[in-house]
């Protein structure tokens, strides 16, 4: 890089340093690219194509950012954007993709994996290559099997699921093997009992154990014979079908499951694209649609109610105690701020203990004073009320802080002018304070609404969506909001996980959130802020 005809040594040194710096940068980028390239290659090899592509994009991005001078500004954000791409963008794209697949229980693996697993299923043929056998059993019910085929070759094999060599060499004196009898079978093996015909035929385990290599397994067929297991299903790659070797039944690939004409299915299936099936299933099934209607309505009530309650209480406090003449204002503010200073999960769990209908402090007090004991966790509307109470407690300090700041920024002379016109306190509040406040904290109200719209932590940790809706075919409760319902669809055990279907509902929620967010951006000057600076 250094030019030979440089006018001064100072300039020369500078350029040399710069050249060396560039070289070093290129070298580091190369090393990073190679490491990421290896990573991507391994991902492709395991069949993880989408995430592999994602890594390739990252490689290109980093290389361009650091090696193309014109793209120098991307140096600053290459790493950040890579993390953003991998853990923010890609999950969303992947979720959208999942919404059109059957990803879930019974369809968790790739097609290749599923074919391998089905091909590994075996059966014990009635006829076929047979062996004479003698079994040895240890006191811990470990087994060894001695085999002799028609040509007279003998071997000693261990069960398939036992670690180590599948075959033990038949050498007397080694591995505890004793003398061999005239057939070539050990008379005794140290630590094992040689089973005679009667003992062997009464042994419950023996006929179920697979011996030998996973590739070539042998099972005891009758008291006199052992035989090699054969694959039960033969795969035909050309037609993508399986044929049952015992019955001749043909299984056809139907959206990720191999199904016979008569309706039998092979297990496992694989993850396949099923088009709009998840959405169609949702529209057609009352057990799925019904709860979701209840859940969406409650979701909006919950978010609106939470916002109104927390905002009103916060505003009330800052109006009443904002008066600078009020003594003890500072200590009061600190005490009222306490709910905000504790991680919300912890306080949610504490409230859960307090609301416990039989043991909690709230019902014990209500019982003592009013002789009532509300069933907070089993009555739908009581559970919802409890959630709103807890959320008010959690959220009002935020609005107390925000509104007290915003109130101070309303100029005092507006109030003076109103007072001259003879406005009452109430009129001043509705006519001046509230409208001006709404302008300045409006955007925060929308983000608070969105936050509560997706307030998974509260719903999940306090009551896990309960009490359950009886007509629902999946796990759904009266206090579930969309996000907790989706989470249960994906992860709640019992009915099996349904990632594909859960993703389809996530998609609906994505759209709702996008609309609300765009609304928020319109209210704030965020969009314009970008525009002006360019």
């Amino acid at each position, binding site marked *: 890089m250094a030019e030979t005809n440089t006018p001064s040594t100072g300039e020369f040194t500078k350029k040399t340093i710069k050249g060396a710096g560039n070289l070093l940068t290129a070298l580091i980028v190369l090393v990073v690219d190679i490491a990421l390239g290896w*990573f991507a290659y391994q*991902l492709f090899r*395991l069949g*993880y194509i989408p995430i592999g592509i994602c890594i390739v994009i990252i490689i290109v991005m980093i290389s361009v950012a650091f090696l193309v001078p014109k793209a120098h500004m*991307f140096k600053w*954000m290459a790493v*950040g954007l890579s*993390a*953003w791409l*991998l*853990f*923010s*963008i890609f*999950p*969303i794209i*992947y*979720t959208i993709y999942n919404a059109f697949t059957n990803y879930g229980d019974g369809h968790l693996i790739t097609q290749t994996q599923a074919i391998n697993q089905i091909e590994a299923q075996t059966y014990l043929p009635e006829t076929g290559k047979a062996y004479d056998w003698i079994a040895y059993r240890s006191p811990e019910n470990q087994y060894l099997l001695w085999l002799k085929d028609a040509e007279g070759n003998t071997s000693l094999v261990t069960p398939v699921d036992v670690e180590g060599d599948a075959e033990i060499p038949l050498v007397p004196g080694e591995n505890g093997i004793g003398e061999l009898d005239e057939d070539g079978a050990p008379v005794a093996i140290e630590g094992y009992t040689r089973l005679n015909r009667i003992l062997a035929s009464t042994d419950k385990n023996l006929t179920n154990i697979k011996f030998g290599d996973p590739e070539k397994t042998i099972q005891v067929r009758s008291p006199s014979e052992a035989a090699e297991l054969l694959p039960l299903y033969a795969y035909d790659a050309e037609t993508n079908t399986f044929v049952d070797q015992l019955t001749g039944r043909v299984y056809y690939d139907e959206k990720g499951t191999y199904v016979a004409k008569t309706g039998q299915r092979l297990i496992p299936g694989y993850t396949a694209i099923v088009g709009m099936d998840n959405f169609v299933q949702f529209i057609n099934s009352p057990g799925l649609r019904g709860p979701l209607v209840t859940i969406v309505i409650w979701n909006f009530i919950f978010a609106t109610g939470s916002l109104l309650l927390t905002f009103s209480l916060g505003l009330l406090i800052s109006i*009443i105690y904002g008066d600078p003449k*009020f003594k003890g204002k500072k200590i*009061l503010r600190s005490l*009222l*701020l*306490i*709910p*905000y*200073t*504790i*991680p919300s*999960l*912890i306080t949610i*769990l*504490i*409230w*859960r*203990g*307090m609301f*416990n209908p*039989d043991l909690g402090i709230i019902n014990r007090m209500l019982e003592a004073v009013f002789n009532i004991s509300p069933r907070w966790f089993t009555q739908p509307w009581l559970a919802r009320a409890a959630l709103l109470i807890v*959320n008010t*407690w*959690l959220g009002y300090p935020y609005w107390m*802080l925000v509104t007290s*700041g*915003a109130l101070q920024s309303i100029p005092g002379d507006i109030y003076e002018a109103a007072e001259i016109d003879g406005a009452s306190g109430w009129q001043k509040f509705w006519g001046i304070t509230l409208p001006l406040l709404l302008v300045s904290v409006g*955007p*925060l109200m929308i*983000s608070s609404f969105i*936050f509560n719209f*997706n307030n998974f932590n509260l719903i*999940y*940790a306090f009551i896990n969506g309960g009490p359950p809706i009886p007509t629902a075919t999946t796990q759904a409760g009266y206090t579930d909001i969309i996000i907790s319902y989706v989470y249960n669809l994906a*992860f709640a055990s019992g009915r099996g996980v349904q*990632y594909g279907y859960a993703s389809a509902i996530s998609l609906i929620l*994505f759209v709702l*959130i*996008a609309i609300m967010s*765009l609304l928020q951006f319109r209210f704030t000057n965020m*969009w314009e802020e*970008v525009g002006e600076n*360019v």
Partner: protein
Amino acid sequence: MSKHPKSIQRSRRISLIWRWVLAVVLVTFSIFPVLWIISASINPVNDLANQKLIPDNWGFQNFQQLVTNPIFPFFTWLKNSLIVSTISTLLTLSLTTLAAFAFSRFRFKGRQGLLKAILLIQSFPNLLAIVALFTIVKQIGDVVPWLGLNTHAGLILVYSGGAMGMNIWLMKGYMDTIPRDIDESAHVDGATDWQVFWKLILPLLRPILVVISILSFIGTYGEFIIARTLLTQREMQTVMVGLQIFTAGQYTKNWGVFAAGALIAALPIMIIYLILQDQIVGGLTQGSVKG
């Protein structure tokens, strides 16, 4: 307006009295759960049913339980939480500051689009994509085990990658308020972009760095659902996951121990709030919301 001074004084006193009455009601509402959990933590009666606000006799048995109970490795969890939150915060901070500098100081094609995309993507809760996140981390772990499921490194990456959006905006907004004349004159003197960033801009960013690190630390410390999904081994989990799992079991029988744990787990965040209250309030009004 034409009231007798004495009656004004009287009405003022009445208003003061009801203000104080209301204040007492509000404060009771606000601190009751806290008092109750403090009392439960020092109450030797472990059972939820027999808790009293003022325990009959008190002691630190519950706290001792936290140290000795093997199925409740509380201090391992606390350590995990502090490690994960600290590293995620530092990572988020460096990644967002660098990116925000480029967005604030350079003009390039796609800048607007990228900024808008970052903001829009941020508003989707990453919980919704949790199946995808789980799959990604699992697949990464199949190649590089120390970044996979059940590792703190994997969780830290997920947290840092998911926290870009709002923080870049906060940081960029703050940088935009620093006049560009400063760096232009430095450029004239031959300073490189990096020197401008490191020597001129970064020292001026202290207030916003404090705000973002506090909010980010509090956010990751309190997160439990992604942590629970990615960390399956008991000793690897964070303190929030631990407390949540604890209450999913027979929690009513172990309320005292839970209370002691909850109190200790809340302590780091409460300390941060007490010390840095004013900065946090400043950061809140700039747009971040905590429930």
